[in-house]
């Protein structure tokens, strides 16, 4: 078992995490460094395909196959919904944030951050800890339900809060009118969103092809993962630093609350994951899904469904607070806990 300080040190002195801070410093020092957008988008497709294909190849080998994963998928779904709902009420009650922004933030907290997921995998790899490769593939099962739950709560809050104002707003009205119809559209959209789509598609490909015949592609996708992740986190650092600046206009209480929600979600995930039979490594990846705050699928959904929410708020929180926290402190804590429980 690893000591938490060892884990933190390993984490902080791993190349991907250091590249994140290199990105942060680039913004602070006004370097003209930027990751070309086409490269950044290519990198995301690569990373999602990489975790998808590995998940598929593993599920293909599991005794129960896809069926064995189902209970975990259900658990992920419950986690998404629960974290979104709990966050919503905490944000409204404790911070008195309006319904739209609370809904958008809650959706972000409940949904999944691909960067947190990838850092968790990289941390386990650094420490030589194995994990169930199918856990990253639970991504969409936690992501979409969280977003839908958050939108539902946000709209319900808006309706209650201010029936009159909502009625006079053509966009809001329009949305209320066909709210039910849009639910399906949100699910479809969150599953066809390019990142999730590639993840799910590669998973199916991994399932069909199977581990033996994937050897060649696996080498490419597996072997380059760490290096490509460095480039990805370099960009994440740039984005986090430039987004954090925009949070200055917001109640500073968002910082402790975001950390608290993340920590609670991650901790709970370790407990539940372990009790469902996940290895310590698997429990940490599951905790990464629960603890991370989404910055990709959430803005897309919220612009359509809770357009009153301020993107700077939820993007700034997800990228500038939750992600750096989990990357540097959260993940080592979850790992420590998972190892403690596994003894």
């Amino acid at each position, binding site marked *: 078992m690893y000591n938490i300080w060892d884990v933190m040190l390993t984490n902080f002195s791993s190349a991907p995490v250091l590249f994140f801070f290199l990105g942060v410093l680039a913004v602070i020092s006004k370097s003209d460094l930027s990751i070309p957008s086409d490269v*950044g988008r290519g990198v995301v497709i690569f990373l999602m395909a990489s975790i998808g294909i590995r998940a598929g190849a593993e599920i293909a080998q599991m005794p129960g196959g896809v069926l064995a994963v189902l209970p975990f998928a259900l658990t992920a779904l419950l986690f998404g919904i629960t974290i979104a709902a709990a966050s919503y009420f905490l944000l409204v009650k404790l911070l008195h944030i309006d319904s739209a922004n609370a809904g958008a933030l809650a959706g972000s907290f409940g949904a999944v951050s691909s960067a947190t997921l990838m850092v968790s995998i990289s941390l386990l790899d650094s420490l030589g800890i194995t994990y169930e490769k199918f856990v990253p593939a639970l991504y969409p099962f936690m992501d979409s339900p969280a977003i839908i739950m958050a939108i539902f709560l946000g709209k319900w809050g808006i309706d209650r809060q201010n029936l009159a104002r909502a009625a006079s707003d053509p966009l809001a009205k329009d949305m209320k009118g066909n709210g039910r119809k849009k639910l399906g559209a949100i699910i479809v959209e969150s599953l066809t969103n390019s990142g999730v789509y590639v993840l799910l598609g590669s998973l199916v490909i991994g399932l069909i092809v199977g581990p033996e015949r994937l050897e060649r592609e696996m080498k490419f996708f597996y072997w380059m993962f760490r290096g490509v992740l460095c480039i990805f986190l370099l960009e994440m650092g740039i984005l986090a630093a430039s987004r954090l600046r925009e949070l200055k206009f917001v109640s500073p209480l968002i910082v402790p609350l975001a950390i608290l929600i993340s920590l609670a979600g991650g901790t709970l995930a370790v407990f539940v994951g372990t009790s469902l039979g996940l290895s310590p490594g698997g429990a940490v990846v599951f905790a990464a899904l629960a603890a991370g705050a989404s910055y990709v699928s959430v803005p*897309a959904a919220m612009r359509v469904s809770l357009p009153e929410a301020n993107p700077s708020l939820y993007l700034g929180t997800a990228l500038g607070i939750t992600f750096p926290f989990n990357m540097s402190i959260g993940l080592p804590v979850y790992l420590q806990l998972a190892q403690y429980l596994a003894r």
Partner: protein
Amino acid sequence: MIKVKRVEIIANCLDIRTVIKEMEQVGIDGYSVIRGVSGRGKHGKSREESHIDSMTSCYIMAACPVEQAEALIVAVTPLLKRFGGLCLVSDALEVDFE
């Protein structure tokens, strides 16, 4: 040469689909899109490069008759109000090659 209005919209890349839907509803069936616009506006600076769609802007241009331009402006105003951006209208002559 046909007298047309040249409507230019700068909007968040996430909203392109919405803008295009509005265009098609007012009958505009010709438009062009350029991605990867950076800049500064009321919401601060936007980075020129990011793999996250919601952090980049797009430029959309349509050459259309004046009535369609007017209808489009009405249709996109609520969107601009919410999410910011820019909408310019100017005069131009379109080469009639048919």
